[in-house]
């Protein structure tokens, strides 16, 4: 007999599990309780380490570790193949992944192979009265939310936006980690990774205080970064600043960047475009500084300050105790 299951893809980041995967586990646990379905965390790799236990602490009832030397590092095609086989065997009802670079790369390919529906960048999840997964997908930047279902096939797949759900510790004494040797034999990957350059950034979506630099302070980025430092805040940027290579994508705020959950954000020289706004929607207090009195950002701010950033930042630096 097949039990109905909710699967969550646990994205590995060396010896850790990505925050978003743990966030999803917490939400899946809630959906599992509501619908009577167990939550299964699925992780691929060669060395299970302590990953399984971490997932069991954050909402998984069971963890499946798909083990093969070829799965040590991520590749679209080998990961798709392994998951396709496993899904064929256990036929989960729902499969949730983080809307990260890797999660989106994998989910698109896998959903097409499975011939099933996939919803993107989901910001809300529920199970409807009819038992189907209801996912909320933002559109046009942040103007609308489309409630989408997949009734034609299983699993119902979604990628979930980081920073939306909360990671929670859910004690689970009875949880088990199943290690499944899948024996892929040869790699089917046609894409070779020649080199990789990554830096570790703490998760911007969980920062308490953020100072954001937009196009209007492109020439004063060092000053804004210095101010963030003095205020004990993290630096964030609008998309164009990251596009120009002046800051890492990991600092980008907005629909294709991070959603912040800060208590306070201080925004310099950002116009408030549709695709920027979802990034600050969940912040408690928003202070904006813009030279343009008519700037759209003011409509989404608690404190609106019409000023030239290059004039006000030096004063803030001084008041903040900068030498």
């Amino acid at each position: 007999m097949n039990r109905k299951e909710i699967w969550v893809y646990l994205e590995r980041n060396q010896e850790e599990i990505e925050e978003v995967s743990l966030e999803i586990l917490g939400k899946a646990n809630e959906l599992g309780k509501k619908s009577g379905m167990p939550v299964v965390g699925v992780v691929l790799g060669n060395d299970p380490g302590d990953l399984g236990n971490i997932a069991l602490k954050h909402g998984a009832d069971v963890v499946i570790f798909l083990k093969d030397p070829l799965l040590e590092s991520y590749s679209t095609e080998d990961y798709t193949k392994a998951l396709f086989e496993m899904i064929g065997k256990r036929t989960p009802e729902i499969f949730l992944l983080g809307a990260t670079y890797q999660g989106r790369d994998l989910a698109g390919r896998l959903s097409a192979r499975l011939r099933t529906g996939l919803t993107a960048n989901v910001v809300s999840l529920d199970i409807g009265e009819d038992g189907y997964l209801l996912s909320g997908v933002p559109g046009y930047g942040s103007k609308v939310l489309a409630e989408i279902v997949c009734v034609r096939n299983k699993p119902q797949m979604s990628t979930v936006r980081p920073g939306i759900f909360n990671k929670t510790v859910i004690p689970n004494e009875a949880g088990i980690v199943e290690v499944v040797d899948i024996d892929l034999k040869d790699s089917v990957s046609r894409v070779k990774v020649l080199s990789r350059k990554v830096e570790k950034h703490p998760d911007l979506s969980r920062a308490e205080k953020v100072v954001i630099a937009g196009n209007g302070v492109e020439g004063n980025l060092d000053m804004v970064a210095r101010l963030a430092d003095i205020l004990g805040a993290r630096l964030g940027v609008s998309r164009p600043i990251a596009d120009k290579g002046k800051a890492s994508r990991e600092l980008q705020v907005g629909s294709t960047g991070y959603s912040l959950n800060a208590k306070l954000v201080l925004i310099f020289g950002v116009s408030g475009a549709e695709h920027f706004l979802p990034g600050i929607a969940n912040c408690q207090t928003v202070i904006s500084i813009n030279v343009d009195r008519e700037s759209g950002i003011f409509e989404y701010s608690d404190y609106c300050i019409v000023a030239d950033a290059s004039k006000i930042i030096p004063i803030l630096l001084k008041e903040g105790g900068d030498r």
Partner: protein
Amino acid sequence: MRNIIVCIKIVPKAEDMNFDPETRTMKRGGVENQINEADKNAIELSLRIKEKSGGRVVLLSMGPPFFDQYLKIGIAMGADDAILLSDRLFAGADTFATSATLSAAVRKIGDYDLVLCGEETSDGGTGQVPSQLAELLDLPQMLFVSEADIDGNSVKARRTIKGGYETVESGMPAVLSIELGINQPRFPDFRRKRWADKEFSLTVWSASDLGIKPELTGTSGSYTIVKRLTEFSTHQRQRISVAGTVEQQADKIMEILRESR
């Protein structure tokens, strides 16, 4: 170098779109359309590849007949050919049905080395089409690409991953999704635009031209259903205006910062 197929979507300008709570739809009246921004970056990249390594740039778009004028803008930018997939059957497609239809067209165009897409659109914005298209064509995929170089029969690309980037390589043909903002798309050439408007004849293919089964396209080929649209509710901001000299404004900011601690 053989054909470089660039998939482009025509999208409404996001700032023009407004939700109508009465009808639960987006008001489209008076809305300006444009080539999706990331797709313009993909066109620009394809033209640079062509200038260096040869080949033909073919634009491919699925949508209603009025998209033709935007495809002509792409021709005026320097693309060699453009194909519009237009049929009532295609309406209401989710990303899978869109990818299925596009893949049939890519096969029909044939003789290609690269299929380029934008990373995501500004309306649906799922970013799902490139990888679904790659799967349906059984081709390697490289997503969120910011640089690409052709070297003989392979393509070397730089793609964004969490915390940084990777340099990757694969044989061709391959599907690439191009990051928004990686280059400055050239302006349409004025004379070429005039030529395109007068003499260029756009190819339009229907479902039967593609030989695709109707049940694989549009609403019937979709696996997802939009149950309803709701307005994205963000909480109302206070919008307190902080006036005074720049020093007074700075003092106020410091005060708010202290209070929020």
